[in-house]
């Protein structure tokens, strides 16, 4: 049975990461941008787990676990911020969050 080369996993991780960046750059809805960030974090997790396999150590898994924890905390706080911002101005357009412009 053919086996999957490690480089394929890493390439997949890179592709997912790039897609996450694309979403971050090109979407206007705040929540969608947030989700793109989560996508990026997932891609990185995949990277960590792949390397854990390669070096036969469990540390990569631990790192991925911590990334997940932080992502959770970040999601909570971030969404709370979005809620606050939405109260200010009823728009979910990222370009409208521009009070610091100039």
């Amino acid at each position, binding site marked *: *049975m053919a*086996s*999957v*080369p*490690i*480089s*394929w*996993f*890493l*390439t*997949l991780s*890179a*592709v*997912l990461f*790039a*897609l*996450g*960046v*694309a979403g971050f750059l*090109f*979407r*206007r*809805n705040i*929540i*969608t941008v947030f*989700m*793109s960030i*989560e*996508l990026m974090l*997932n891609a990185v*997790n*995949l990277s960590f*787990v792949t390397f854990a*396999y390669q070096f*036969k*150590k*469990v*540390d990569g*898994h*631990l790192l*991925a*676990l*911590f990334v*997940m*924890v*932080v*992502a*959770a*905390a970040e*999601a*909570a*706080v971030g*969404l*709370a*911020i979005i*809620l*606050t911002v939405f*109260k200010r101005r009823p728009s*979910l357009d990222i*370009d409208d969050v521009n009070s610091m412009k100039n």
Partner: protein
Amino acid sequence: MDVILFLVFALFAVACAINVVVQRHPITSAISLIGVMASLAVLYLLLGAEFIAAAQVIVYAGAIMVLFVFVIMLLNAGAELRSGRSLMAQALGVPLLAALLGIVAFFVQRLFPRETTTHFGGFTGGGAKEVGRALFTTYLLPFEATSILILIAIVGAIVLAHKELD
């Protein structure tokens, strides 16, 4: 078998990711994201990361994405009207992304030649026992720190959202 599994779920993950980025309505993007996470969980299993796969489904897909969906419903977010672009992102974004992807892919190919392979069962150290042991010995400090982090996040979220009631 591994290859087929990998290809199927990898392509599924990519398709869902593209869907996340492309879809107009946030709720659709959220569902697509759940799909990405699910396929990633399968890939983790392929790599012998049982605990992480489970955690991925439970925490990420089951908790975080639910939170996202709640907020989308709360905000009554509609479809995005038009995708305007910031000049900077438009001008530089695509080339930079292409560059990023190209460079990383190139170096990955170079550093990990095709001979290095994985197969299911190649790594057995990813079970709950091993993860737990490492968590409570080597990574004890980060573990405790994350508990405080979560506490802060909870408090922060409550404070930020609390004013809404006034």
